[in-house]
């Protein structure tokens, strides 16, 4: 479940940002009709909101990978590492 969440956000964030840049390029290009421009704008704003959302809602996850016999397990890192600093 952890990996699916990450996988989903990973797919969304970088691709969303790329898509957003693409949309801005098309809008600035000037070749879109008014209707297409409005549609692109709406799509772009949706991507923008989604990206900001991911940035604000994410929290760092830190784990250690350890081998137990043949298996690998994860363990959260000991908390002597400093907390998240907000920008």
């Amino acid at each position: 479940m952890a990996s699916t969440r990450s996988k989903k956000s990973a797919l969304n964030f970088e691709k969303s940002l790329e898509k957003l840049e693409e949309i801005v390029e098309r809008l600035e290009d000037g070749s879109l009709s008014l209707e297409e421009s409005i549609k692109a704008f709406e799509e772009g704003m949706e991507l923008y909101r989604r990206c900001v959302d991911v940035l604000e809602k994410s929290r760092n996850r830190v784990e250690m990978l350890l081998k137990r016999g043949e298996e690998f397990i994860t363990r959260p890192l000991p908390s002597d590492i400093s907390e998240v600093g907000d920008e």
Partner: protein
Amino acid sequence: MDIAGRKTLTVSELTAELKGLLEGRFGSVWVEGEVSNHSVPASGHNYFTLKDEGAQVRCIMFRHQAMFSKFNPEDGRKLLVHARVSVYEPRGEYQLVVDRIEPLGVGALELAFRELKERLAEEGLFDAVRKKPVPEFPRKVGVITSGTGAALRDILNTIMSRSRLVDVLVYPVRVQGKGAADQIANAIGALDDEGNPWGRLDVIVVGRGGGSLEDLWAFNEEISVRAIAACRTPVISAVGHETDYSISDFVADFRAATPTAAAQRVAPKQSDILGKLDVLRDAMRASIIGALRYGTERLVGLRRALPDPLKTMEERAIRLDELAARMERRLTGEIYLHSERIGWLGTRLRRAPLIERIDRRRTVAEDSFRRLETAAGRRMEDASASLSAIGARLGALNPLAVLGRGYAVARRNDGTIIKSTEQVRIGEDVKVTLAKGTLTALVKNKEP
């Protein structure tokens, strides 16, 4: 047993026992020492002595081993050899049969570094085309470094203070000493494996803090370097300080000068990303406002150009009424005028200046023609009169007309007209042309 009852051995027996003892006890050993008396006879085998301050031992490395050795014995060099202890009975000597040589000391490390680097470069492992791109916004980052030590702490602090997007999976390993290179290689293999608890990672950071060449050596060993080369996940190598270059750095997809720099690479600052997003949002807004404004202006322009349909309708309705009224007035009030108008029109037509003009012109034309005729006729008469007169005068001058009066023309035979008696001789023929006919005459007499 000899005659005195002592246990005796032959030399061979003694040597054989020594051989058994030594070879059994030691088998293969690693021995370090300094090389001297190195020689390579025609056979191709390497003979040398390995010594230290207290002792020395003879060594032999057979040709087929020496051929594949990276390191060669050279007088004065300090080496580590892997060898089999052996007793050479014919000479009563023990020796080391060497199968492997490794360099000792710092110079040796540098030599090893250079040799491995050259070999792997030749294999193409450092080629730019092999390097995989490191994602700009990785979400899952693997970190291979010492579980204790400053490097891990620096990496985690840097990441967490910059970006909340990044999740970190740490695989602690020994980063120096025995087995470090193996552990590093295993760690890379484990994190690269999609079957690990976090699945596919976006990038793996492998490194450690600063140290000497020996401290960093694990990152120069073939096993760890090849593990990096074989890794399918992009690898960032972050070994030591800025000025430390390890072979891991050359083979990795990206070299970070330090572990902290690696952390910065994988964790773009949140504020920067937000800034970038805002720039994009503002650009979109500007574009769409521009587009809407343009669209609105066009619309307004078009509307102005179009007549107001309502107004047009009204105007047309009024005009329609007007016309209808006029028509009505006409129809009811003016029918009686109709015939009068026609008559009046007829009069107008008759008295039309146009017709008068036509008549007048015709008259003028006729007059002119008549005058022309008269003048022409008169001239004709004059002309024929003159012609007759001239004809008469011409007629009078006609020589043939003279003949008509009785005169004749006398000519000599050659045609010349005779005007004087001198032109002819008596007895000559002459031709005489009369008004009618010609004579041939003979000159009988002439006077004078």
